[in-house]
């Protein structure tokens, strides 16, 4: 499993991809500093809204999408998946190794954004800051599971991922009340609110424990779907 994990790290950490993602990750911090520099008033409320809108709704899902979809997607496109499936290792080992690799790399990239931006807005030693990071971690895990699976089932995984993020996680979750129970964005924000005792306010949040359970279900469900696909597909 370690070999597949190390291979996944190599695959998802190409220099150009990492540079682009780091730029994306640091963008919210840069804009936060800009807001602060240009505004005379107390800007904390504005910055919090900005974090919610940009880090959670844009940086988090896009970074994970760009990192997770090639984990299997590149193997299928380059026709190298057979190198892994024609080895005496369980398919579940391949799925777990890939998923862990994706979570670690995308977690590190999103983490840079979350830590730097959160540092600027919250007290670094506060529960609110930790709650913010916990919510981000839940989001990374949930999106990683979905987008890793997506990379195995379609050649246009990144495009589908972007559409999903903006249509389902963005538009639908704001219009349809029930979507918050089936939304990674909803789980992320709800966990932040729950862990910060309401310091990070989230309209339309669900119970924090329910959000954690929801994220766990997404992780297991999409890992199983990935495993099922890998076991039954015709490997090119």
């Amino acid at each position, binding site marked *: 499993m370690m070999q597949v994990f190390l291979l996944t790290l*190599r695959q998802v950490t190409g220099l150009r991809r990492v540079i682009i993602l780091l730029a994306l990750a640091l963008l919210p911090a840069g804009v936060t500093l800009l807001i602060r520099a240009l505004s005379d008033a107390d800007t904390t409320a504005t910055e919090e809204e900005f974090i919610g809108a940009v880090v959670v709704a844009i940086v988090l899902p896009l970074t994970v999408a760009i990192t997770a979809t090639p984990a299997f997607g590149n193997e299928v496109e380059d*026709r190298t998946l057979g*190198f892994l*499936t024609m080895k005496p290792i369980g398919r579940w080992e391949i799925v777990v190794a890939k998923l862990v690799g994706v979570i670690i790399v995308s977690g590190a990239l999103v983490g840079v954004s979350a830590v730097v931006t959160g540092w600027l807005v919250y007290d670094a030693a506060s529960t609110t800051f930790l709650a913010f990071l916990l919510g981000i971690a839940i989001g990374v895990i949930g999106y990683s599971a979905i987008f890793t699976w997506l990379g195995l089932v379609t050649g246009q995984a990144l495009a589908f991922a972007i559409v999903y993020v903006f249509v389902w996680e963005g538009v639908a979750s704001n219009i349809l009340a029930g979507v918050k129970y089936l939304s990674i964005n909803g789980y992320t924000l709800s966990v932040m609110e729950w862990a910060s005792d309401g310091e990070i306010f989230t309209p339309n949040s669900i119970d924090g424990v329910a959000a954690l359970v929801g994220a766990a279900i997404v992780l297991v469900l999409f890992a199983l779907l990935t495993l099922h696909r890998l076991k039954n597909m015709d490997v090119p």
Partner: protein
Amino acid sequence: MTTTSPQEPMISVRGVSKWFGNLVAVNEVSLDIGPGVTGLLGPNGAGKTTLLHMIAGLSAVSRGEILIMGQPVRGSVALYRSIGVMTEHQSVYDQLTGRQFVALNAKLQKVPNVDEAVEKAISTVNLLDAQDRKLATYSRGMRQRMRLAATLVHDPPILVLDEPLNGTDPRQRLEFQDMAHRLAAEGRAVVVSSHILEEVEELADTILLMVAGRLAASGNFHAIRAKLDERPYEIRIRASDSRQLAGALFADESVDSVKVEPDDAVMITTRDIVALQSLLPRAAKDSGVTLFSVEPTDESLESVFSYVVAR
């Protein structure tokens, strides 16, 4: 290396079909493969790669069964210790060096002494000098050879090689031939696909002919060759006096039919191409006719296979 009992074929394909929607890629193929080099021959699109993918467990069968050493291959991950598969694609992990790539395969195969196995495999394909270069910098032939090293690294008793000679030069082909024979002499089943008849001529002990998804013929090269040589050849000749030449050829028993076309070309069919080769210049000389061109009209491999299938 482990082997099966002499009675049990190492690869057994039983009534296997594979279809993609309405397209039947492999149609009711049954065959057994034992130790030795087996050539899977057929034109492009004959279903060779699809069949090899099913033998390798990469694709599921639509109908039938494939057993490797008595076990169903699909889903039996432990069986992959016994199989080495090289697909036809040139795909490799470009970001790795040749040695890293072979070592990765060795580690995934849980080979006990990785360094020793990697050294041996790379030396078998004569690429020790280039082993520390990234695969992205390799020529096509070098990639093929390094992929072969990765296929051999766990010393499997069954080797399935899809078009392994693609991109290799004549010297490399001879080296591959020697290697394949050496591996087969050690009791391995080596399956090699090709769409070029001459490629498998010196290589394979047994040839399986596939055409349009079906197994058209099987046997040793000479049996297949004899079958192919029985087919009528059609030859188109341009000469200074077509009617004079047609008359001179008509009487010979090696010629089945002679026809002068509207464009003045002479069309001959024969089942004895060797006899015709000596008859034609002699007949032209005796009748005072100058030959401008002599060309077979159906020399493509597809036409040869179509004839075998139609029989």
